[in-house]
Each structure stands twice: as C-alpha cells, then as structure tokens.
C-alpha cells in the first residue's frame, strides 16, 4: 500500500468489491457450507481491508471523494465520500457483518447450503456500505432501496413460512414506501440546492432553510428516515421482521439497516437541522418512539420481540438526540449508535443461541438458562446491562450523555423539567425490560416444556457474542481510548462544524444526569418487581397485532380495488363503446367550441328532386334496418338498399370509381352476411332496458347530429387542396387519365400496398380463425320450415358456367382500363372473386374446390410481390421505392400502346383481392361442409 495508491480509487473499490462479489457465496456453495461462509467473510474482510488505508485520513476530518459519471444531466453520479461518519458506519457494517457471517454458519441448519443466504447478506452489506459512502444523495437513495429489497429477501429467508413472507412484505412496504418519500424529498432538496452532491447540499443550509420547499422536502426526507429506523408510527414492521433468521436480525435490525434512518439524520443534519420544524418533528417522533416502544418491549413474551421493541426505543432515543438539535446531542446520538449496535447485536445473537438451543423464544417457557448455559448467560447479562445503561458498560455512557443533554436543553425555558422527566421514565422502562430479559430467561425457575435440551452452543457460535460483549466492556471502561477518535471524527463529519467540548469518561462527578441514571436503574428494577399487576393490566388490553392490521389494510386495498374495477369495468363492450363515443363527443365539442370561429361561407350546389328521393330512400333503408334489426334478413335487404343509394350518390357526385367499388363490395357483403347469419342464433337479442335505450338513443343522436352538423359546416368552409397537383401530373407523371386510379397505384401507391397487406391478412386470418371450427347448423329456418332439398338449383348451376368466362373477360377489361377509365385492380378482383364464389354457390364446394388452382397463400405472396416488386425495381435506376415508369410503345400495325409499371402494381392488387375474397367467403362456406362430414362420420 504505497503512496502511489489512489485513495479515491480505493474508496470506489469498497462498494465495487461488495457488489461485484456478492454472488461469490452462491458460486462457492457447491464446495460446501464452509466455502460459502468463507467466501462471504473474505468479501467483508476485503472491504474492511480496503477501508483501512483510508481510515487515518478520515479520522483527521479529511473527506475523501470519488466520482464516476453516470447520469450527470439528472444529477445522478456514482460519487462517493468517506469521512468520519462514513468510516464509523463502514466499520460497524463490515465488523458486525463478519461476526454475523461466522455466527450464521453455526446458527443456520445444516440442510441450508448458505450460498443464497450469504449472497443476499453480501448484497445487503454492499448496499449499506453504499448508503454510508454516498456523496450523491440519489445514489444514496439507490442503495437505500437496495437495502429494503435485500432485507425483504433476508426476512423471507424461510420463504415457506407465512410469517416470514408477510413480515418481509410489511418490511418492504414500509421501508420501500418510505424510500419513495425519501426520493421525493431528495429530488426537492436537490432542486433547492442545485445539486445532489452532499458537499454542495451541506454547504447550502441557509438557502435550503429559506426556500419555500424546505418544509415538504424535510417532511418527505424524514418520512424516509423514520420508516427505515422504525419510528413511531411506522415502527410496526420491525417486530414482524423478526421472522427473519436471528443472524439477520442481529445484523439488519440492530446494527445496520435500522441505523440507516438515523444515519440519514446525521448526514443531513447540517443542511436540514436547526429549524423549529426539524426540532418538533424529529425530537417529537423520537421521544414518542422512545417511550412507547420501551413500554411495549416490557410486555413482549418473545425474546426477539422484546429486543425488537427495545431497538425501536433506542432508535427513538437516537432520533430524539438528533432532534434536540445541539452539537452535543448529535455527538451523543452518534455515540449511542455505536453502543447500541454493539450491545444489541450481541443480544440478538444470544437470543439466537437460546432459540437454537431451546427451540423456542417464548420467555414464559424459557427459564433458568443460567444454569444450562452459564457462559452465554453471562455474556447476555452484560449486554443487557449495557442496554439498561448500567455503569461500566458502554450503554451507560451514551445514555448519560443523553440525560445530560435533556437537562441542559435550552429550548423549554419554563418547563426545564419536562425533558429530563421524560428521559428518566424512558430509562426506567429500559431498565425494566432489560431486567425482565435477564431474569425471565436466565433465572425464574425451571424451563417449561422445551422442545430441546438446552446447553452451551458450539464454541464458534458464541465467539461473536464474546467479542461484542468484550467491546461493550472496553468501550464502557475506556471510551476515550477505544472510540474517542472515531466518535470525534464521525461527529465532526456529521456536524460539519467544530466539535463541541465533551469528555468521554466514566465519571463526570455527582450531577443531575447521574441522579437520573440512578433513578432510572432503581425505578426500572422496582417497575419489574411490581410487574404482576402491570402484566395483568396489559392482558386486559385489546390485542393489537401490527401484522393483522397490515393484512387487513392489504385485504381492504385488494377488495377495494376489485370492487372499484368491477364497478368501472364490467367487461361490457357496449359500455366501452358508449364511453368511447361519449368521450369523443365531449372532447370534440370542447375543442370545437373553445377555439375561434370562422366567418367565411362558401355557396353550395343546388338541390334536385332525384337527390331528395335518393335521400328519402336512404333514410328509409337506414332507419328501417335500425328499427327492424331483429328481423335480420329484412335488415340485410334494407342495408343493401342503403348501399345501392350510396353507390348512386357517388355516381351523382362524380365518383364513378367509388360507385363501382361500392357495388362490388356490396355484393360481397351480402354473401358474407348471409354466410354468418346461417349460424347466428336468431331471436336471441334481448330487449334493452329503458335507461339503456335512452342512453343509446342520446349517444346516437349526439354522434349523428354532431357529424351531420360538422359535415354541413365543413362543406361551407373555404377550401384549398393539394389535389391540383394530381390533376396536373396524372397524365404526364402517372401515365393515366383516371386520376383516382393513378393516385391509388402511383401517387399514393404506398397506401394501397398497405391496404392489400391488410386484405392479405384477412385471408390469413380466415385460415387461422376458421381452422377446425365446429358450428351447429340449424336444421330448419327461423319459421321452423325444413330446408329445401335442391342444393344446387339447375338454372343457377348451368348459367354460372358460361357466366364465369364472361365475368373474367369483363374483369380483365376493368383491370386494364382502370388506369384511364373507372375500374382497376380492386374492382376487377372483386368481379373475378365473386364470379368464382358463384361457382361455389351454384355447384357446391365438393365439385368446385378441385377445380380451383393452387394454394391461396402463394397467390397472396405473388400479388404482394408484384405490387412491392415493381416498387423495388425502381432502385437500380436510383429512384425511391414505388417510383413508376410509363411510356408509349409504337408497334407495327397495332399502333401506339400505352404501358405503365403501375399496371403491374394493379395486377398485384387484383391477385390479392381475388384470393382474399375467395378465401374468406369459401372459407366461411366450408364451415358447414365440415359439419356435414362430421355428422356423417358420427
């Protein structure tokens, strides 16, 4: 480790190693449990080792920074910082992590291969390191949420247990949800400060406080911190998370993850602290948590439950300290973070040992353990003493600093006694539950009905506890020597200001804090001694399980969502359509009336009697079909009349091509409708209820009236189009006199290519949708009349024979003349296909099918190929896709012949249309054949 080693590279290497190696145990587990454990420990040790060269600088108030650019435009960079606070947490994370790895190898059952466990644990550790090393707040948030996720996985480690799964989900819901609030808060904070880099934010305290968004940002960030640190009222997830294996609890729920919240308070204290809002929110929440959780802890029968609530309470204490908002209270808070991590981790591990040995953690059954596992008991008692704040132990020191802070706190001028009293009560409760832990587990008579015969755990399982308890003692006895520099560095980093005067010593003389400690100790013991009536009182209280509350919340969310969805969306297409139409009517109406109106009006065409007659016919057909839609054949006939009138309208309005197409399509539509009608059950349409009818009529009137008025208004509006170009260019540029056809095959040939593709897909769909479809054919018509026996009426069958060649001749005419006269590929294709369909209709499938050529898909491909191929053919000439060519060829005798490449395009259109119409109509017709065959065979 020479001076050449780049410290910022080293810094970046810490989380990189942790993340990079987090799958190592999973890979190593094939070599056995030990290999997995060793792998995990090696990773942690490596991180620790990487940290050591950086530690000296960090201890001397130096902040090491490293930055890799990630998403700078949005302020998100991989920028890291190592200062005293980070160093402290890194040491906790890696140090306790190592112990937990060791402990878990013994604790977890031999059947576990541990690879998954250690990998997730490493992932968690990596994320924790990330949090404490982040310089960029967004980066911090990323790690923050990864801890939530990995904690979710760790809590649910025993995924076959319901308690584990629900506990994990609760933990994720609360901490992950808090993370979202934190994200919002950080985004606001970054917006205020102009950066997410801590160095900038910590220096921008004044600007932050003065900003209008300070309060929302603070509240959102505190939500994140409080949820993570299980502050009241978000504390409930932590006890449920005790379903996790004990090593997880020791690591996450005492030493590290729950500390992330208070870490964040420490981190952002210089930027956000120092306001009334901060004081009231932070100290208020902390104080409430402190007392409330301590009181609950006393009554938990589960050892881990007691420890969990105790943890909550201690986190409350730390939070309260940060809330008190004095430099010294921040120092005390950080000191307590260290102490709590040490003693609580050891206590959890001890609880794990007891669980491991006894098979239960219920303190009503686990008694008298001191005799069965004296060493473990001694260790646990020492740690519990620290938790209670017994002198000579580390917990005492920070608790006394806390008492001192409450005494000297300047905020309440007249009510100086409130805070000390509060602190003393909390201290009493802590002593009481610690006493209960010690007495109830290790003494209190004989165990009741234990599943196993408890004795001392394996040597190496106890070793981590021993080490931690040793630390409790060392810190308690020699605070200045053991943690002094670290605490100073951490506090300095947290405060971002010169440290206040404080001495880390066991003895500060007889003063008010000492009195409070004595009172707390005595009071706590008395409280525990008088526990019987208290427990009886508590038993009377209505049971309150956060888990069931969460489940109830979740169930309500779920049923509420389902109920709401079912109310909105009942699966009715009619409603969808009604909503769509209403939406369009509203949107259109708003858009139309909210803008400026035009004033210019253009004169229209004169009305003649024939057109009025046509309109009346159309109305008759339309309204008739609508009113009589239950008489389905009549409706089909009436709609055909409408189609006829529409086609005649096109003739009247100078659109012969449209009239042709309309007629041809009309014919296909009738056949189609009849093919379908054969199968559809008649008379099944229900009568609509009156409100429905009113709704539908209203919508129909709005839509129809609206579009009618728009038509009128559009026709009266001034008009200027691009179509002069088409008229000018049709002959010189497109080589055709029928401008509509030239548009279709040339100017906008690409549209047509897409259109025949659509048609081709209809043919493919006819295969795909009708494949193996079995329908029940009615044996009689709707009047109950048996079908006629003559399947192929003679005249029809005979006259269709000559008509086919004649139709083909006509379709060739229509196809070839289409470029200059009304016609073209579409109409020609429709004529041919309908003529062929008539062969089916006249002579039946059995006799017609064998006479049809080839596979339809090949014809589709051919048609599309002709259309697109003639488009690609323009490439060698350096022209874009679909560029047409046309010209006149002079031939002897025959004279001038006009040729256009667009005609090949039209031929492609023709082939596709023929194939599609034929495939669809004959496919629908064939359905009955399948049915008849099936009936014959069965």
């Amino acid at each position, binding site marked *: 480790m020479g001076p050449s080693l780049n410290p910022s590279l080293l810094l970046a290497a810490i989380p990189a190693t942790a993340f990079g190696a987090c799958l190592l145990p999973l890979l190593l587990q094939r070599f056995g449990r030990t290999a997995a454990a060793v792998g995990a420990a090696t990773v942690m040790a490596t991180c620790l080792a990487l940290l050591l060269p950086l530690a000296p600088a960090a201890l001397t108030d130096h902040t090491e920074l490293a930055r890799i650019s990630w998403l700078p435009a949005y302020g998100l960079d991989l920028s890291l910082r190592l200062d005293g606070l980070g160093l402290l947490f890194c040491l906790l994370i890696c140090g306790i992590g190592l112990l937990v790895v060791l402990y878990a190898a013994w604790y977890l059952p031999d059947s576990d291969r541990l690879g998954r466990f250690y990998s997730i644990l490493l992932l968690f550790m990596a994320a924790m390191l990330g949090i404490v090393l982040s310089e960029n707040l967004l980066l911090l948030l990323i790690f923050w949420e990864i801890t939530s996720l990995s904690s979710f996985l760790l809590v649910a480690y025993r995924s076959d247990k319901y308690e584990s799964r629900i506990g994990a989900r609760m933990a994720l819901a609360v901490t992950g949800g808090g993370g979202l609030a934190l994200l919002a808060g950080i985004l606001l904070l970054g917006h205020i400060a102009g950066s997410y880099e801590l160095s900038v934010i910590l220096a921008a305290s004044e600007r932050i406080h003065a900003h209008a968004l300070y309060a929302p940002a603070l509240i959102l960030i505190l939500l994140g911190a409080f949820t993570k640190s299980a502050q009241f009222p978000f504390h409930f997830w932590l006890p449920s998370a005790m379903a996790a294996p004990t090593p997880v609890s020791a690591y996450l729920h005492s030493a590290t993850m729950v500390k992330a919240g208070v870490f964040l308070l420490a981190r952002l204290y210089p930027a956000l602290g120092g306001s009334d809002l901060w004081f009231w929110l932070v100290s208020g929440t902390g104080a409430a948590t402190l007392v409330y959780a301590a009181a609950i802890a006393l009554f938990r029968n589960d050892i881990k439950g007691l420890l969990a609530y105790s943890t909550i309470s201690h986190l409350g204490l730390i939070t309260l300290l940060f809330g008190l908002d004095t430099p010294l209270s921040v120092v005390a808070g950080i000191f307590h973070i260290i102490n709590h991590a040490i003693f609580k981790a050891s206590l959890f591990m001890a609880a794990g040992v007891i669980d491991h040995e006894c098979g239960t953690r219920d303190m009503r059954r686990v008694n008298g353990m001191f005799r069965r596992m004296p060493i473990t008991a001694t260790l646990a008692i020492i740690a519990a003493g620290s938790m209670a704040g017994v002198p000579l132990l580390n917990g005492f020191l920070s608790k006394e600093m806390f008492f001192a802070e409450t005494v000297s706190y300047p905020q309440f001028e007249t009510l100086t006694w409130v805070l000390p009293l509060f602190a003393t009560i909390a201290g009493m409760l802590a002593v009481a539950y610690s006493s209960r832990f010690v007495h109830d587990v290790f003494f209190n008579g004989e165990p009741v009905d234990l599943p196993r015969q408890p004795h001392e755990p394996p040597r190496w399982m106890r070793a981590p506890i021993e080490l931690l308890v040793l630390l409790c003692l060392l810190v308690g006895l020699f605070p200045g020597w053991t943690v002094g520099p670290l605490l100073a560095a951490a506090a300095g980093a947290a405060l971002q200001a010169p440290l206040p005067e404080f001495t880390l010593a066991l003895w500060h003389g007889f003063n008010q804090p000492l009195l409070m400690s004595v009172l707390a100790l005595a009071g706590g013991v008395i409280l525990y001694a008088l526990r019987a009536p208290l427990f009886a009182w508590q038993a009377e209280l209505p049971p309150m399980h956060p888990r069931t509350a969460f489940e109830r919340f979740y169930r309500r969310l779920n049923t509420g969502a389902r109920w709401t969805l079912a109310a909105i969306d009942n699966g009715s297409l009619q409603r969808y359509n009604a909503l769509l139409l209403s939406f369009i009517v509203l949107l259109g109406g708003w858009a139309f009336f909210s803008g400026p109106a035009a004033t210019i009006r253009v004169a229209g065409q004169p009305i003649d009697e024939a057109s009025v007659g046509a309109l009346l*016919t159309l109305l*008759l057909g339309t309204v008739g079909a609508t009113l009589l839609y239950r008489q389905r*054949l009549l409706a089909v006939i009436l709609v055909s009349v409408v189609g006829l009138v529409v086609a005649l309208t096109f003739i009247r309005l100078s659109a012969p091509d449209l009239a042709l197409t309309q*007629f041809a399509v009309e014919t296909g539509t009738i056949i189609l409708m009849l093919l379908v009608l054969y199968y559809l059950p008649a008379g099944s349409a229900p009568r609509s209820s009156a409100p429905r009818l009113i709704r539908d009529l209203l919508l129909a009137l709005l839509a129809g009236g609206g579009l009618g008025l728009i038509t009128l208004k559009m026709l009266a509006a001034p008009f200027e189009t691009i179509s002069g170009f088409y008229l000018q260019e049709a002959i010189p540029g497109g080589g055709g006199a029928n401008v509509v056809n030239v548009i279709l095959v040339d100017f906008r040939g690409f549209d047509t290519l897409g259109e025949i593709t659509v048609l081709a897909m209809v043919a493919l769909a006819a295969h795909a949708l009708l494949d193996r479809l079995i329908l029940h054919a009615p044996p009689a018509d709707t009047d109950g009349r048996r079908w006629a026996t003559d399947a192929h*009426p003679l005249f029809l069958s005979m006259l269709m024979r000559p008509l086919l060649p004649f139709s083909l001749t006509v379709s060739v005419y229509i196809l070839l003349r289409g470029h200059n006269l009304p016609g073209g590929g579409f109409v020609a294709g429709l004529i041919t296909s309908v003529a062929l369909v008539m062969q089916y209709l006249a002579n039946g499938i059995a006799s017609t099918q064998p006479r049809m050529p080839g596979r339809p898909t090949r014809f589709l491909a051919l048609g599309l190929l002709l259309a697109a191929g003639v488009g690609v053919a323009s490439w060698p000439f350096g022209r874009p896709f679909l560029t047409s060519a046309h010209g006149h060829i002079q031939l002897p005798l025959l004279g001038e012949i006009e040729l256009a490449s667009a005609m090949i395009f039209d031929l492609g259109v023709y082939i596709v249309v023929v194939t599609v119409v034929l495939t669809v109509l004959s496919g629908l*017709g064939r359905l009955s054949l399948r049915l008849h065959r099936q009936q014959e065979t069965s």
Partner: protein
Amino acid sequence: MLNAAIEIAFVLIGTALALNLYRLLRGPDTTDRILALDTLGINAIALIVLFGIRTASSAYFEVALLLALMGFIGTVALCKFLLRGDIIE
C-alpha cells in the same frame, strides 16, 4: 326534345323506383322484398344509363355493366339462403 324526353324518363324511372320501394317495404313475404330489391337494381341500371346520356359521359358505363353482371348475385344468395340456409355447401 331530347332533354325533355330525358326529364320525363327520369320522372318515370323515379316513379318505378318508388313503386319498388313500396313493394320492398310492403312485402308481404321476404321473397317479395328480394324481388323488389332485384328490380330496384335493374331499374338502377336504366337510371345510370339515362344519367350517362344526360351528362353525355360514358364514365358511368362500367358501373352499369357491373350492376348487370353482379346485381343478381345478391338476389341469388338471398334466395338460396331462404331455400337452404347454407348458401355455400
């Protein structure tokens, strides 16, 4: 003279179409309605041809041709439906 003849012819054919519509609505049986529809189509051919003469345009010839060639198909299909239900079998 021609123009007058054309106007009169329009009125005559218009009346014919109205009578077709009457039969179409009146029925009484579906076959009557189909017959009316068929006649409507044939009369429409006359109308289109007349329209072509009036506008002196052969642009509408193809439409009339198509109607003559395909107009019967709807009628045939409807009748086949009445007879057999299954029009393509």
